[in-house]
């Protein structure tokens, strides 16, 4: 998955105007890749793929991601910070051209990777925010991550992990085509 692509929203630097000392440049949980889920959803909505369940799953992830991005910007400003639209946050590896036209199991695995990556980044920020001996100790950020960010992330990851388990075993059967049809149908009802 591509990380450095410019259409992703990125990290911001916190301004700690109300505290003493040099404001540390702390990275905020990066916003989800804003448009990648939209492209994944689009792929499943073409007449050849025709998987309304997968379309709905990725469209839902895309909508949530968009709303989260706006909420995150608002949150940053509640802390006297401002959104930086310039720099990149999500991982540096993976220089391959992005590909969002994947088979069903692969696409869910990719989504799971993206969500885990976000969780890992949030944990990193949390550890910085709670490192009490350093100059940067920020209980409010750790509270926000613990109560707002992490529970949502936990649930998304669990859901996607469950789907990969189901799909892996379903595709290992005699008629994976029928399995996919039924799984897709199941997704339309989620």
């Amino acid at each position, binding site marked *: *998955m591509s990380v450095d692509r*410019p*259409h992703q*929203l990125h990290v911001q630097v916190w301004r700690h105007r109300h505290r003493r000392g040099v404001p540390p440049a702390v990275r905020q949980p990066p916003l989800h890749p804003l*448009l990648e889920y*939209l*492209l994944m959803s*689009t*792929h499943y*909505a*073409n*007449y*050849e*793929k025709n998987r309304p369940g997968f379309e709905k799953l990725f469209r839902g992830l895309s909508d949530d991601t*968009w709303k989260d*991005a*706006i909420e995150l*910007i*608002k949150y940053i*400003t509640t802390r*006297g910070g*401002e*959104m930086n*639209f*310039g720099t990149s946050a999500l*991982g540096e*590896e*993976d220089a391959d*051209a*992005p*590909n*969002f*036209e994947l*088979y*069903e*199991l*692969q696409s869910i*695995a*990719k989504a*799971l*990777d993206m969500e*885990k*990556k976000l969780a*890992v980044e949030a944990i990193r920020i949390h550890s910085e925010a709670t490192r009490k001996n350093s100059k940067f100790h920020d209980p409010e950020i750790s509270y926000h991550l613990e109560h707002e960010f992490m529970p949502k992330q936990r649930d998304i990851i669990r859901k996607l992990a469950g789907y*990969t388990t189901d799909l*892996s075993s379903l*595709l*290992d059967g005699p008629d*994976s*085509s029928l399995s*996919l049809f039924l799984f897709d149908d199941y997704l339309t009802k989620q």
Partner: protein
Amino acid sequence: MKYIVVAVLLACSVALGSAVLQCEHKKPDIPSDWIDMVDPCIRKMRGQIEEELKAAMQYMAMGAHFSKDTINRPGFAKMFFEAASEEREHAIKLIRYLLMRGELTSNVSELIKRNLMPKTTSWTSAVSALKDALNLETTVTKKIREVIKVCEDNPTNYNDYHLVDYLTGDFLDEQYHGQREIAGRVSTLEKLMEKHGALGEFLFDKKILDGAV
């Protein structure tokens, strides 16, 4: 973090002879004569999706700007965040249209190529942001007209009546109504600020927040 994707790719690719995972399936044999959109028009439509997303990001930057504690204009922030989401919806509408016409079966990954990050991220006043918004919409309107032109009349001599009607009746309609609304706001705010600069903007912001103007 990439392990899962890699593992799945491996699992799928070694599936060929063995009874491992079968991810790939037979490509269905569907008649393709019903797909009648022509290339120059399709390209224009794909480009317009990027335009709408670019507008979405520009509005998001405006929302972010007016949310800052040093700017503190929650009404304008709300208005621009809503505009950002609307622009994203426009992009989705265009995507849905192309899908309905049998397009986007390939090269979906290349749908967004350009840098969508906003060029401007701060404004000297609410009036200047509103004027930028009006100009942004004017640009989008022009681009939609260009799409219409190409889809109506092109070297392949294929007039895409249905798409042209959709863009004219649906998209342009919203553009013109939207532009009139923003122009009206620029007018009211500028008049308010003639004698009462700070107070004018403060009051207008709260009016927008309450949905009163």
